[in-house]
């Protein structure tokens, strides 16, 4: 699949934003000691809202008619894309109410139910995003039980990393050992599960053969003799994308280097350096995001759509 920048930006930015909302929704009502600085909640929530909005706006750039995007809320009975849209808009309700509580316009004890509601809404939105892809039988790499948990894990990992620079800015006196370790563990678990998934998929993904695709019984060796067109078509540009299958391993190594080694190392450095403003937290967040961005690029680029079987040259690797 051809990885569109708009779709990668949509899933990674909104994922990070919803990840922040999940952590905040669980942290704000139940965190007691040491007390969280007021600015932390407000600015983290604003950051989450900006990330989510930027992601959703990026997704509009993928559309041929963004001005009709409102129509996409109507088909929630069958379409995961529609469900994602409905939940994305709904999540703004608990998010904005939480912001009003933090700003003091609503009673603080509302957080006891608003927080979990915010976390749940954000998590469900991320799962719906994942299901847009995981529900497609046409892309065997995506129709995998690990895709939905992975989307959630990457959202939690980026969210956990993104809140650290804000926390560090508002409370430089804190020693951030606990939340730093949480972010490191989340990044590690997400990327390791992704590594294991790629390894498992390499052996297990099977797609229909060309014989089955042209209506012949299995056993017939069918080979492309002449393509249907001499130049590219929409289908070959969008669905028969081969670049990543050639360069997938260096790309995944780059994702691991950014997401685990650099982000994890910078987090370690920042949390060991003691109290004070630590720019390493900010750089760790940027590297974690870069790692997830590369990973998401591969998620699209590496996936093989079954329609590509019609276009395969006999000498081309099936990858």
């Amino acid at each position, binding site marked *: 699949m051809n990885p569109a920048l708009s779709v990668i930006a949509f899933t990674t930015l909104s994922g990070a934003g919803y990840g922040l909302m999940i952590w905040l929704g669980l942290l704000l009502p139940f965190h007691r000691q040491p007390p969280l600085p007021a600015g932390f909640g407000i600015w983290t929530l604003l950051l989450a809202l900006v990330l989510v909005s930027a992601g959703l706006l990026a997704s509009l750039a993928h559309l041929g008619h963004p001005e009709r995007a409102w129509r996409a809320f109507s088909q929630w009975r069958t379409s995961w894309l529609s469900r994602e849209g409905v939940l994305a808009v709904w999540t703004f309700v608990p998010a904005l109410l939480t912001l009003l509580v933090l700003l003091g316009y609503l009673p603080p004890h509302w957080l006891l139910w608003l927080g979990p509601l915010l976390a749940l809404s954000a998590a469900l939105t991320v799962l719906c995003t994942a299901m847009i892809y995981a529900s497609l039988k046409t892309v065997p790499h995506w129709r995998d039980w690990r895709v939905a948990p992975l989307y959630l894990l990457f959202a939690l990992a980026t969210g956990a990393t993104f809140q650290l620079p804000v926390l560090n800015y508002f409370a430089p006196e804190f020693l951030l050992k606990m939340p730093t370790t949480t972010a490191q563990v989340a990044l590690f678990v997400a990327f390791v599960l992704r590594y294991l998934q790629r390894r498992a998929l390499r052996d297990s993904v099977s797609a229909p053969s060309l014989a089955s695709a042209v*209506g012949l019984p299995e*056993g017939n060796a069918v080979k492309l003799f002449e393509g249907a067109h001499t130049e590219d078509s929409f289908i070959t540009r969008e669905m028969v994308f081969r670049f990543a299958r050639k360069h997938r391993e260096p790309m995944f190594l780059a994702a691991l280097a950014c997401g685990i080694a650099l982000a994890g190392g910078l987090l370690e450095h920042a949390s060991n350096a003691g109290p004070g403003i630590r720019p390493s937290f900010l750089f760790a967040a940027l590297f974690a995001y870069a790692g997830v961005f590369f990973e998401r690029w591969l998620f699209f680029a590496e996936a093989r759509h079954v329609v590509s079987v019609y276009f395969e040259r006999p000498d081309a690797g099936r990858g």
Partner: protein
Amino acid sequence: MTDLPVRTEKKLGLLIDLDICVGCHACAVACKEWNDGGQFGPLTDEDPYGAEPMGVWFNRVHSYTVDPAVPQESGHCGASSPPAGPAGRLGLSLHFPRSCLHCEQAACVTVCPTGASYKRAEDGIVLVDYDRCIGCKLCSWACPYGAREYDQAQGVMKKCTLCVDRIYNESLPEADRQPACVLACPTGARAFGDFADPSSVVSTRSAGRDPQALMPELGYEPTNRYLPPRPRRDQTPEAKADDTLNPAELPTVLRWLDRMLSR
């Protein structure tokens, strides 16, 4: 609207005989011509005279070679006697027109977030309402057959309409109320009709021929069916061995005549 109809009264579709198709692309060109104008046009071309011309087509013809690896019990395009080995086995060329199959379990319809994609309950035709389509391209991702193409100029997804503006057009002579690809096919490899009706041309023409659905294992239950090539006449060396005449024993004139007539 993106719910699929529980059942459709008719199952209009195409029957494509792969034994007859010669890969001339007339169906693809006629389709482009008809659908470029009228109700569903234009089928926009990008950079039509430039270095990388690209455009929207509903119908594409691929050509393949088939090497029957093992004799098939069902007789599809396999040798009818055991093959003589790679050198003696006869491969065949297969011309394969690919277009929308108007699936009964059309995922392109159910994934559509706006309801622009729909399957008609009355005849099973899958269509796109261009005025509702937001151009998210998800339907093209959901289709295993590559039937949907994006029109860059109009920002909407397009697909084969089964020439719905021809087949119900009462201003046309009745014989012309068929999809443009069917009318254009010079070899008669295509037929149009109602697969739910056992007396329709698509049903009678498939009798005894084992019509195939494409990628049936994916479960989209396509309406269109393809007739696989009939078994070839056996042309392996063994098959020719029953010819007991040895030309070398003939007089010169007859040997010459035999050679001429054997061509």
